[in-house]
Each structure stands twice: as C-alpha cells, then as structure tokens.
C-alpha cells in the first residue's frame, strides 16, 4: 500500500512533465520539415509516461487487493493536450520565446524523469511487480535529454532579434534533424553538388511543402555554392528560390540558350547551303525550329527591355521554357520586396510566341496600381505557367469547346508557383490572383488546392466559370472575390464550366470592366487609363471605395462586337 501511495505521489508530480512541451508544439499548425516528426515523437513519449504510471498503479493496486486491502483510489493521470487547427490569415511565425521555453522544458524533463522512473522501478520490484513502467518513464526522460542540446544549438543559430521566427526556418532548420530521408531532401543535396538530373526531377515535383523546403535549403547554402548554382541551367524555374536569384539564373540561361541556338542555326544554314537540293527534310524542320526558338528569345528580351527604364520597375524573369507551348513568367517589380503581388493568369490560345501582349498587360496593371498605391510597393506578374488549350477555331463553338483537364493541370502549376511566392515573399504581403477567361478556371481550381492560401483576393474577368458554384467556396470570403463584366467578351462561345460568376447567385462582387462605352479596335480590360484597368488596379490595391462606376446612359457608338486578341 505504501508502494502504491509512493507511486501515486510520483504520478501526480511527473505524469504531466512533457505536457507543457507538447502544448508548445501543438500551438502551431506545422506544415513540412521535421517539425511534425518531432511533435509526433514528443506526443508519443508524453503519452507513454502517463500509460506507464497508469500501469504501475494498476499493478500495485492489484497487489493491494490481493493482500486483502481495499481497492486504492487512483489519482487521475491522463491529461489532454488539444491540437490547434490551422487558421487562415497571416501567420506571423513561431514565437522564439516559446521555442526557448520548449528546450528548457525538455531539459527539466531530462533531469526529473530518469530519477522518477528509477524510483518507480524500485517500488515495483520491491513488490514483485514487472518494472517495465519505470523503464518507460526513465526512457522518456532520456529521450528529452538527447533532444535538448541539439535543439538549443540550432535555435541559437537561427534566432533573430525579432520575437518571431519564420515558420519554414523552424520547420526545416530547428527540427531539420527529424526529417526522414525523403526524396526532395536527397534531390536537394544532389542539386547542391550541381547534379542536373536531380534538378530535372526536382523541377517535376509539385509537393505543397516543397517551395518552403527549397527556400530553407537555399538560405543554408554558402554564398559560393549559391553563386555556382545560379549557373545550373534551368534552376531559375525552381519555386522557393528568391526572385532576384531566379531572375539572375534565368537571364544567364536565356543568354546561353541564345548562343547555343545561334550556333546551331549557323551550322544548319551552312549545311543547307552546302547540300542545297540534297538537304534532308529533317534539317529544314530543325532550322525552322531553331529560328522560331530564337524569335521567342528575341520576344522575351524585348519584353524585359522596359524593365528599369523610364520609371519602370525591374522586370524579373522568374521562369521560362522555350519548348512546347512554352513557359514564361515575368514580374514587374520584385515580388519578394512588394507589399502587394498580383498574378495574371491568361486564357485560351495563349502560348509563348504570343505572350508579349500578356507581359504588357501585367506592365500596364503595374503602372495603374503603383501610381495609385501611395507608399506601398506593387509587383505585377504575367504567368504563363501552364498549357492553355490551343483551340483552332474559337469562332466555331461546337467544334472547339475546351475541356477542364488543362485547367486541372494548370491549377497544380499555379499552386506550386504561389507556394514559391509565399516562401520568399515578405511577411504581411498581399496576394491577388487575376484570372482571365480560361485562366479564371485555372485560378479557381488552384484555390481549391490551397484553401485560403493561394491568394487574399481573386479577380475574374471574362470568365466561363471558375470551378466552384459559389464565391465562398474559394475560402477567402465572398467579399474578396471580384467578377469583371464585359458583355462583349466572346466567353459565351465557350460554354460554361460551372456557374457564371457574374450571376447574382454566385455571390461575387461584380465590378465594371466593360468597354462597351468606348469602342476601339483591340480594346480590352487592360486598356490604358480605361475604367476597366483602373478598377483592376483599385481591387489590387484594396481601394474598394474608389472603384469607378460607368454612366449607364452612354450608348455604344459602334455596333461591332469586341474581338479580343486572346480569350
């Protein structure tokens, strides 16, 4: 009986020794890195202590009863630690103080638990009971003791003057030792040593946590390694790298590709001249291809040329791929330094060769938004990061209704790109996604892949449906979902994917984006100084009260419907 009371006292004193530490970890919704593994181990040890005490007390109570005594009252041992669920909204980071406290708690547990466990073992053995619960309690203490020094050392290395640590720094650096040897880590290690095949594999991955992981990995690399890696072809497209690094790497790669293609073209031209009529058809095709690729490179160079000139912000080349329908992502302004980042997702028939107009749309939106944004810095991105359907004949609807499969694939790409922006962007940065026509469907589907985390605000113009039936399904609040209406946009030709977002039943906020009052050839939502562009900028800037409203008494001057350059 005395043994029972002694163990009961130890239980009361020690059963909750790892509770506080567990609560610290439970207070954050961990995504990625070793943190979830550490949290799981910690939780396991915490529970094991309580189970061990429970078992020890049950065994001793049984012994008491066997010796003729009354059933002793067991103290309540089991405690609950509730897990905080992930919340939406800005995530400031992990409390440095809390992390320091965690390490201290582990130290204390390391000191107290082995002794308590030894005591329990002794008490159990003395009464002829199995001593294993005592070993379990001691083991939890020993585990805590092995964790604390490593965590203390890592924490000293990453902590800053601010009271908050960036979450990916905590997840990957502080708890980096707990990550299992998964593919991305192996690939990253190989990329760090310059392995191009590993880079190719890494670039093909779309894990939600990958961009954060890349970000943490990049910042741990020595400067000399970073410098060397910017010359690894294709690395500029890796989501999670700082925007400036992506730009530097992509421009170097673009220049290298240009040199390579020019040399090939020269060679091919040489061969052609030599062989003339005997030239194999295959080399003709290759020559045409080389020519086309070089023209695309010229287009990219032209589009970037305005960057930094005449008051324009720097133009950052965040991604490009010359093959297939192509990839091209250009940001006007540095998204890592911006307060507001707006990403424009284009629609049907967009492909690399014709993307110059879209890059220009992002540029004029930058102008309109930045001019009116006061002190806040704007970055405006043109994102050709997916394969839009290429329809032969948009004017012949039955033959060419697009499926939503490209949008599904595009959504995965957009989500991964958005992860990259957030991994490297500033705290408190505001993200706006502007989807045009089919691009609005891509945007809506991407929103479902990252509930509440793709963007703070959605704007859809010329939309055939965004993949959800109600604005609130996009998980940012219906008041943050905007729908631009232009009755002249030939969207009706496409049929609908989901409910028309301009419908009252969709619940989005409709704003005027029409050019029906001013008819000009090729006019559209991005016409400079048009009410439409002004409203896009107002929404981008969060200046909802300054949205401009059309005067409805104006008649259209001409009857010609608007034909857009792309939909």
């Amino acid at each position: 009986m005395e043994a029972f009371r002694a163990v009961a006292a130890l239980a009361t004193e020690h059963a909750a020794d790892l509770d506080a530490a567990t609560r610290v970890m439970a207070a954050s919704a961990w995504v990625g890195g070793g943190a979830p593994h550490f949290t799981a181990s910690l939780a396991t040890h915490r529970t094991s202590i309580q189970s061990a005490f429970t078992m020890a007390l049950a065994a001793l109570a049984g012994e008491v009863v066997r010796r003729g005594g009354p059933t002793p009252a067991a103290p309540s041992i089991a405690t609950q630690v509730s897990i905080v669920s992930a919340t939406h909204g800005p995530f400031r980071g992990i409390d440095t103080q809390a992390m320091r406290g965690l390490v201290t708690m582990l130290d204390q547990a390391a000191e107290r638990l082995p002794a308590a466990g030894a005591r329990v073992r002794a008490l159990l053995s003395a009464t002829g009971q199995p001593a294993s619960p005592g070993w379990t309690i001691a083991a939890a203490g020993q585990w805590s003791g092995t964790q604390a020094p490593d965590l203390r050392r890592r924490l000293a290395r990453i902590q800053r003057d601010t009271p908050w640590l960036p979450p990916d720094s905590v997840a990957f650096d502080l708890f980096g030792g707990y990550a299992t040897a998964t593919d991305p880590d192996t690939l990253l290690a190989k990329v760090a040593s310059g392995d191009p095949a590993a880079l190719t594999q890494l670039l093909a991955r779309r894990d939600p946590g990958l961009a954060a992981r890349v970000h943490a990995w990049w910042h741990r690399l020595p400067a000399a390694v970073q410098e060397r890696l910017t010359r690894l072809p294709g690395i500029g497209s890796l989501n999670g790298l700082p925007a400036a690094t992506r730009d530097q790497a992509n421009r170097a790669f673009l220049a290298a590709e240009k040199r390579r293609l020019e040399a090939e073209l020269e060679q091919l031209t040489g061969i052609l001249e030599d062989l003339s009529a005997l030239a194999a058809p295959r080399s003709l095709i290759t020559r045409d291809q080389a020519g086309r690729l070089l023209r695309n490179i010229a287009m990219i160079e032209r589009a970037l040329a305005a960057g930094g000139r005449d008051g324009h912000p720097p133009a950052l080349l965040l991604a490009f791929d010359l093959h297939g329908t192509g990839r091209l992502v250009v940001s006007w302004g540095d998204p890592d330094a911006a307060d507001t980042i707006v990403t424009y997702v284009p629609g049907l028939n967009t492909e690399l060769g014709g993307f110059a107009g879209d890059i220009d749309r992002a540029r004029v939106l930058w102008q309109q938004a930045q001019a009116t944004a006061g002190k806040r810095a704007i970055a405006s991105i043109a994102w050709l990061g997916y394969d839009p359907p290429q329809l032969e004949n948009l004017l012949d609807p039955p033959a060419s209704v697009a499926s939503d499969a490209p949008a599904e694939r595009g959504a995965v790409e957009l989500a991964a790109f958005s992860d990259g922006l957030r991994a490297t962007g500033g705290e408190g940065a505001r993200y706006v996604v502007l989807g045009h026509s089919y691009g609005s469907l891509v945007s809506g589907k991407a929103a479902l892949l990252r509930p509440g985390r793709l963007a703070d605000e959605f704007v859809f113009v010329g939309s055939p449906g965004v993949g959800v039936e109600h604005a609130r399904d996009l998980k940012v609040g219906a008041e943050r979902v905007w729908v631009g209406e232009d009755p002249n946009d030939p969207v009706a030709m496409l049929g609908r994917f989901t409910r028309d977002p301009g419908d009252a039943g969709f619940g989005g906020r409709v704003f005027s984006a029409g050019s029906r009052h001013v008819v000009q050839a090729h006019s559209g939502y991005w016409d400079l100084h048009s009410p439409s562009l002004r409203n896009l900028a107002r929404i981008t800037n969060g200046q909802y009260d300054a949205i401009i409203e059309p005067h409805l008494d104006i008649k259209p001057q001409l009857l010609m419907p608007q034909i857009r350059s792309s939909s």
Partner: protein
Amino acid sequence: MFRWTLAACLTIALVSCTSENPMTTQAEAVNRVEELIRKTADTLRPPPKLELIPYTVTPNPCAFSADGVPERYTVNRAYWLRGVPTDQLKRVADQVKAHWLAEGHVITASGRAGHPDLAGVSHPDNYTLALVWAEGGSLYLAATSPCL
C-alpha cells in the same frame, strides 16, 4: 490574334477595322494628348503644377504580330496635379468635369460617394481621358490615344 481581327472584319462588314484615325502620327497624337491635359489643367483654380509620371511616356503596344512584335501603339501621358490641398480634390474633380463637358467630351464613369475619380472620352477623336485619385490624396490627369 491579328489574323483573327482580319477574319472578324471580313465577316462583320459593318465598320472600318483600321485605326479610327488612320492619318494620325505618333507625334500628332502626343500633341493632342498634351493639349487635352493642359487645356484641362489650365481651367483649374487654383492652378496646379503638372508633374510628369515618367513611365507614361513609353508608347504602349496595342497590337502585336504573331511573333510578338508590337505593331501598333497608343500614345499616353499622365501628370500629377501638384499643389492641390487634400480637401479640395472633389472641387478639382467638379472643375475637370465642367471643362470636359464644355469641350464636348463625354463623361463615361465616375467615382462613388465623393471620390474624385472621373473617366471620359474626348470629342471628336475618342481619346481616353482620366482623372485619378491616388493613395495619400494626390490626383493625376491622363490621356491616351486610340490604337494607332
């Protein structure tokens, strides 16, 4: 893109599909844009100081070839109206509106509930006109030519 417009023009033979001002050169358009802004600013009391917004000087492509080479441009200018007290913005907007209407321009849109924003189209040549409010209480006047 460009060949589309051509197809549209052939099937909808209603109006001319070329520029509405086929004879306007960029130089002429710049003169017109500057005139539209300055004439407006000249009517404002107290008269503001005009400060050019630099990136608005770049002509904006409004049509591209299949290769992405810009083929047609709009000409633009925007000027900050400096020296307007922040409590006078609505008054300035009213003056701008009065002037545009007096010139025969059309007001196509305006800001809500006391916001000084205005949008218009010039008569007779359909230049886009804009009076725009910026965060911090500044106003700018802008004009843009049709696609030339």
